[in-house]
């Protein structure tokens, strides 16, 4: 249920975002979701791709610093209160959300949020038992 996310270190300078993106494009790797966490001096580009192992190898061999992290793709109702329902399911669990971002796709009135938990396995359990759908990589990328 967990999905492999790639994070890439990029200095906060013009052109530094395009190098890894161009590399993925040249290797036919489609970026399905991304977010950029930025500070004044540098950023962390986090992205989801269908073939994370291939992307990892390509980026590493070009000398990029890349880290893989397990994240969860959670389906929420695309209406007011949808996110609150997910957060409510985690209350009292002592689970910590490190960060969350929205994937630019959804289906059937549902939106998809990408969560990074401190303990993803425990989070899957809590979400499932509250009747919330956690998508697999296959479901997310449609294969």
């Amino acid at each position, binding site marked *: 249920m967990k999905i492999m*996310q790639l994070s890439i270190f990029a*200095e906060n300078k013009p052109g530094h975002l395009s190098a890894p993106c161009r590399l993925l494009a040249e290797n036919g790797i489609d970026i399905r979701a991304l977010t950029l966490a930025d500070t004044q001096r*540098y950023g962390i580009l986090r992205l989801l791709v269908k073939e994370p192992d291939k992307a990892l190898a390509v980026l590493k061999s070009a000398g990029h*610093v890349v*880290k893989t992290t397990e994240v969860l793709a959670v389906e929420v109702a695309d209406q007011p209160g949808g996110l609150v329902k997910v957060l409510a399911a985690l209350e009292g669990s002592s689970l910590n959300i490190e960060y969350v971002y929205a994937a630019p796709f959804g289906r059937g009135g549902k939106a998809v949020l990408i969560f990074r938990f401190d303990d993803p396995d425990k989070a899957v359990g809590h979400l499932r038992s509250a009747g919330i759908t956690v998508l697999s990589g296959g479901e997310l990328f449609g294969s």
Partner: protein
Amino acid sequence: MNETQPVFHPASAPDFVPAPLLRALQFDRLRAIVQHAYDHVELFRQRMRERGLAPADLRGPADVARMPFTTKTDLRDTYPFGLFASPLRDVVRLHASSGTTGKPIVVAYTREDVDVWTSVMVRSFAAAGLHEGDIVQNAYGYGLFTGGLGAHYGAEGIGATVIPISGGNTDRQIMVMKDFGVTAICCTPTYFLHLIDRAGQLGVDLKKLPLRVGVFGAEPWTHSMRRHIESVTNVHAFDIYGLSEIIGPGVAIECSQHDGLHIFEDHFYPEIIDPESGRVLPDGEEGELVLTTLSKWAMPMIRYRTRDITALVPGTCPCGRTLRRMRRIGRRSDDMLIIRGVNVYPSQIEAVLLEVEGTLPHYQIVLTREHGLDQMEVQVEVTAAVFSDRVGALEALSEKIVDAIERVIGIRIKVTLVEPQTIGRSEGKAKRVLDRRST
């Protein structure tokens, strides 16, 4: 780690000459080289005369301290050939330093000098356990820099198969290392660290290769770097010391005891001095290393101030070599930075980075002046080992480095994380300090 057995190599015989004979040989050679320099180098003759000294006044080893020093400035002032003691037709080789500012310094070798250089490099490799049949990847830069050709002649001299790959093109280095069955490598320690990182990225496990010996020099490196190298590879790492002004690599090397570097004293006469007063210090005390070449004819160096801070190790080495040892170079006297009146050595920053990150990342110290106040920034290349997908973790890492540096030097400085391969490297040597305070 693969223990290299200390096998006696015939080329090492002069390393074991009984100490009294070695002292006598040193002094004979010293007198001859001082006479040669006096006869042929105007600057030296002039300085001896100013002191009322002639070569004949050199009656015993104690008289060495009366002779004038030679400094790097002397080499610059007499650029290019002013300190040569042999006519150019007898000089078979010239090398030059990679001068970053102004003119480089030029050094010269007669055929005999090249032979001496080869012999000390052969003895260096022998001490590191190399022999016929080894396949040596020489990743020191070939060219005006002495590292490449010095190691090349030595490796050929010991009968190894030499791959003169020179520096750079890391992916090709790794391919050659793997495909040619390389057993030993020569390069700067920071370049080898880079090679290790790159091999990891390419999925090459260096532990599965026959690579067993590394001879690393041309810049100071630390015990922690050795530990790191020897834990992630099967390489037995040796520190080699040398400088172009004296001969190039091959002035001194560690034996398998790794308790100091044996100086090839039959060719290089070492002294340790107080860098302030110039007074000679006894063995065991730390000071500036001063070297006199005992058998270099094209360009003898009398009491050359190396600016390297070390000490001569008292006592004898269990390996049996009678050659005295010097401690590994931790810092150079001209490395010292003065920031807001505080003395700072790059090696202090390096020690902190090693401690915090567990391995030495590439870094650079950038000095600037804002509103009349010195500012110090340490730029650190992010490595896979410390990178995190969380901003908080990276901020905490910078903060931890800032705090640790403050504990050591007493100044709060700025730490900036930068992308890999963005800090400049030259000849494989790391350029540690960028001083922009005067511009």
